């Protein structure tokens, strides 16, 4: 029985110079839950994700992931999370297999060749394993990014607009993959600015506007149109 949320954000404020991007943001995510954070461009979705990923320090407030404070023990948090962002963290001149080997070693893992091959197979890249990433499509790069976490098995997956730029087949694959991740007890936070597939996987929808979560509601209770309406409403409120 999980009592403590896997992710707990309280009163988060993040300021860049003079610009206050996030202010008074609260968010809880439990194990096995997927939250879609909806927001306009520039609303601070990526910033929120960065703070959760320990890539940015909170100016004020507390952020706890998997029991560790992001500001005080970032290294401990990093062991538990996987970040899939716009930049896919792959070296173009290396092959898929080499990239995976590099990241695995850097993360302190020692997967056997078979395990690495299996990871690539899970993300359906086994045939492209020996190709240089330079030749990959966006979807393939994203899948390679995820292959890292097949090996590392983090407890939290943070994804920044994961469905953008993927073709239908890749989107379907991602949906299934995220669903099985959830089923395995992981928590997911995804950001998005559209009302597509992300919402299908999400259990809750949080609308980010005005620097905080304006609305946090289970997806089941809303239809896509409802979401659209509420989103536009809050986006207007914020501006």
């Amino acid at each position, binding site marked *: 029985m999980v009592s403590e949320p896997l992710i707990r954000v309280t009163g988060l404020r993040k*300021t*860049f*110079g*003079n610009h206050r991007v996030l202010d008074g943001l609260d968010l809880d995510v439990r194990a096995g839950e997927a939250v879609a954070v909806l927001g306009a461009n520039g609303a601070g979705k990526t910033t929120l994700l960065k703070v959760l990923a320990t890539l940015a*320090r909170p100016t004020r407030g507390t952020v706890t992931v998997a029991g560790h404070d992001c500001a005080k023990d970032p290294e401990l948090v990093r062991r538990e999370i996987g970040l899939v962002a716009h930049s896919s963290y792959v070296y173009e001149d290396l092959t898929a297999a080499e990239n995976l080997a590099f990241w695995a070693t850097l993360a302190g893992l020692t997967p056997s060749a078979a395990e690495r091959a299996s990871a690539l197979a899970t993300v359906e890249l086994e045939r492209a394993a020996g190709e240089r990433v330079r030749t990959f499509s966006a979807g393939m790069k994203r899948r390679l990014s995820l292959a890292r976490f097949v090996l590392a098995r983090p407890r939290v997956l943070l994804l920044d607009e994961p469905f953008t730029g993927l073709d239908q087949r890749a989107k379907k694959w991602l949906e299934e993959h995220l669903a099985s991740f959830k089923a395995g007890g992981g928590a997911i936070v995804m950001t998005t600015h559209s009302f597509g597939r992300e919402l299908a996987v999400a259990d809750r929808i949080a609308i980010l506007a005005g620097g905080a979560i304006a609305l946090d509601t289970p997806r089941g209770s809303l239809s896509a149109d409802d979401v659209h309406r509420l989103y536009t409403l809050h986006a207007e409120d914020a501006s």
Partner: protein
Amino acid sequence: MKRLLGFLTVLGLAAGLGMGFGVAPREATQGNVQRIMYLHVPSVWVAYLAFVVVLVASIVYLARRSEAADRLAHASAEVGVLFTGLTIATGSIWGKPTWGTWWTWDARLTSVSILFVMYLGYLLLRGMIDDRERGARFAAVLGIVAAFNIPLVHFSVLWWRTLHQPPTLMAPGPAPVPGIIKAALYVNFVAFTLLYSYFLTRRVRVLRLEAEAEA
């Protein structure tokens, strides 16, 4: 507190300059121009002091993330660069009538110039990073590297070129300086240190106000 510091500074400076330019004896060969030593030497000591403060404040900042430590490092670097500039200027002014050139590659002038450029780079780095927290972190690292470099600079330049004026007060070995001159120098050290502290506290205050205004 600041009033007192300001007052003491003025007093110290008056005493120091009075001693340097009035009481101390006129140097035989160089004449009155030599009196600029009473500005030049204390200047370089205070510059070194300022950079040691930068080192300590930088370490404290990295260890504790104290914004106050960061402001102290920043301000001390600024004042340090100021005094380093003063050292170079006074050295140059001393040099022109004495040796006929504005610039010489003697040990002190060269070392100090290297320090000057190093810490100017420090200020430049701070200026070019918009993210306050990252700027503070990087500057702290640079402050540490630069400070550890100071002895390396000192010795390498010393061995490279000891022209005239072996730096008597800072070289290893006895200092052949008569009493009254020593006294005048020390009074000026104190005066300049007070001046440094005064500038420092004012700069730290300005930086703190700026930070508060932004938050």
